[in-house]
């Protein structure tokens, strides 16, 4: 090895100090939450919530012709704004691509991410993307869509039929696992992208097409006769979609978590947008209704513990209604993108949505 001369050493030293300086600078900008003040306070001070969304998925977040955003993910943003600021109109939506979304949180471009993001270990962990996830707001999963007049109602009835599937994705593997474990023979017709899958299915090449259920519903919302197609109840994979925030900001993460739980808990207790005022009156008049009084912020001071106002639940429900109301508005049977509730029902109705107690 060659000897290192003193000039080389000087350059190296400069390089090292430069790198260290740059790192300090970069990390300084990257995590503003490392100071003691939480983004929650920043949002209140700014009087505006910046919410990262997709903007391209009907039913979840979609830019309507009047320029407003609509969808389940959007209502989650509105609920946060109502809880934190007290006004659901004080939201700035940032449409993000899948690649941009995590960087946007880490650099502080957005406060919260509500963009059909699958909750996974590596995204949640510090060693991974370093986010923190709120409760799952939509349990997506791979599904199957068939024509209504085909009379097919379950996976079993698709035995020996052709199924249109996008190639080269986990979708292909999931469909095979599902049919194989049920020992049903089938014929996969594989296309490279979703548009071809849709074309193949609509042209009648296959009896069914498969993709994530939310994508199936979104694709269907563009069909001419969307009422003629149904999404089967069978779910072939797990894709839990949840809102996320910076993992180093516990205060904001906690607030986010309990706003979603409030939506779920309200549905369980039958508290809706229309009866919330009556429920508040009822709770005020009856001191023995302890759990309801705590939930609505009359007793217990739960909101304060989160850095929110004690009546944040009331504000949220007045804005968006409970989880079931949000779901029905955007994904219910009467909506543009109907998806059967399935796993997204409450735990006591056969689904998996459950809220820990407001104690």
């Amino acid at each position, binding site marked *: 090895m060659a000897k290192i001369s003193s000039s080389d050493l000087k350059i190296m030293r400069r390089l090292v100090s430069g790198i260290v300086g740059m790192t300090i600078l970069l990390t300084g900008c990257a995590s503003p939450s490392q100071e003691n003040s939480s983004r929650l306070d920043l949002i209140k001070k700014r009087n505006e919530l910046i919410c990262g969304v997709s903007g391209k998925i009907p039913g979840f977040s979609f830019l309507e012709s009047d320029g407003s955003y609509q969808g389940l993910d959007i209502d989650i943003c509105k609920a946060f704004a109502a809880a934190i600021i007290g006004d659901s109109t004080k939201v700035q939506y940032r449409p993000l691509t899948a690649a941009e979304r995590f960087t946007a949180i880490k650099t502080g471009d957005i406060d919260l991410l509500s963009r059909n993001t699958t909750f996974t270990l590596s995204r949640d962990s510090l060693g991974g993307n370093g986010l923190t996830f709120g409760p799952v707001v939509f349990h997506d999963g791979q599904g199957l869509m068939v024509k209504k007049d085909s009379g097919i109602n379950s996976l079993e009835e698709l035995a020996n039929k052709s199924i249109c599937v996008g190639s*080269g994705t986990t979708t292909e*593997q999931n469909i*095979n*696992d599902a049919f194989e474990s049920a020992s049903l023979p089938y014929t996969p*017709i594989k296309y*490279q992208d979703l548009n071809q899958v849709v074309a*193949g299915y609509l042209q*009648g090449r296959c009896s069914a097409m498969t993709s994530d259920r939310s994508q199936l519903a979104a694709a269907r919302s563009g069909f001419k006769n969307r009422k003629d197609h149904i999404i089967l109840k069978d779910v072939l994979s797990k894709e839990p979609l949840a809102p996320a925030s910076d993992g180093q900001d516990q205060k904001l993460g906690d607030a986010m978590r309990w706003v979603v739980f409030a939506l779920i808990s309200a549905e369980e207790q039958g508290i809706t947008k229309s009866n919330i005022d009556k429920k508040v009156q009822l709770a005020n008049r009856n001191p023995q209704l302890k759990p309801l009084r705590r939930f609505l912020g009359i007793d217990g001071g739960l909101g304060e513990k989160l850095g929110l106002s004690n009546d944040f639940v009331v504000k949220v429900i007045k804005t968006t209604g409970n989880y079931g109301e949000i779901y029905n508005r955007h994904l219910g049977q009467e909506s543009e993108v109907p998806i059967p509730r399935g796993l997204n029902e409450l735990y006591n109705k056969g689904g998996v949505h459950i809220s820990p107690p407001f104690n």
Partner: protein
Amino acid sequence: MKKSQKIFVQFGICFFVISLVGLLINNLTINLTRTGLGFNFNWLFKPASFALAEHPLPYSSSDNYAWALFIGWLNSLKVIVSSLMLATVLGTLIGFARTGKNALLSLLSAGYITIIRQTPLLLQLMFWYFIGFLGFKDNTFIHIKNIIKISNQGIELSGLTLSSEFSALLFGLGIFTSAYIAEVIRGGILSVPKGQWEAFRSLGLSEKKGLLSIIIPQALPAILPGLTSQYLNLAKNSTLAIAVGYSDIYAINDTIINQTGRAIECFLILLTSFLLLNLLICNCMEIINKTILNSRKYN
């Protein structure tokens, strides 16, 4: 330039090419090691866990990747050989029609060649598939007793079933290549000196007999090399199968890359299998070529 200079220049070029290739290989190896990949073909013998719509030999998703790739290769071979035959028959007929004396036929075939040659193959494949076959909807388009049945599920020809993906690819590739083959045939026929035509006519031979026994044998040496390169093109174009959902080797490779992440190994396999396939075609044509040339010497 002096001879020594020439040698020096050639040596320099060789050195440059070799070091460039070496650099690329070195770069690849370093990056593969760095990302912990490295060449490894063990995955070939793990279960593929995907199903295939068409398989000439028995296949199930618990078979290994190597078998899946082989099935893909057979699927490719199947579509290449059958569209090659279709293209040759169609191309020859149209080539003759184009050079023949019948003005209407000549005009029609010129139109056919123009349209087919001047639109992209991918577009034609999509046309045959999505508008051609799938356009038949659920009701059968043609149904003649038990002989032939064409629907959006494909073609049923007295017991033999061809899927709509295979049929679309067969027609797409066959018809596209036939236009080129027709031009190769025309070029071959035109290369025969005019005197030969006048000679057989003056001998009192009919047009048909003269064409078959005087003109064609002389045109063949000019036709065969062009034909070979059209066949090779057809084989390579067959990878567009992925656009119409046919499980050829390229489509299967695509899935395997996504499942295993072994892109480099997969592409090496793909390259090798296409090389094998095209060498097969090339050598067959070479044998045919030699046989014909030899038979001419004998005459």
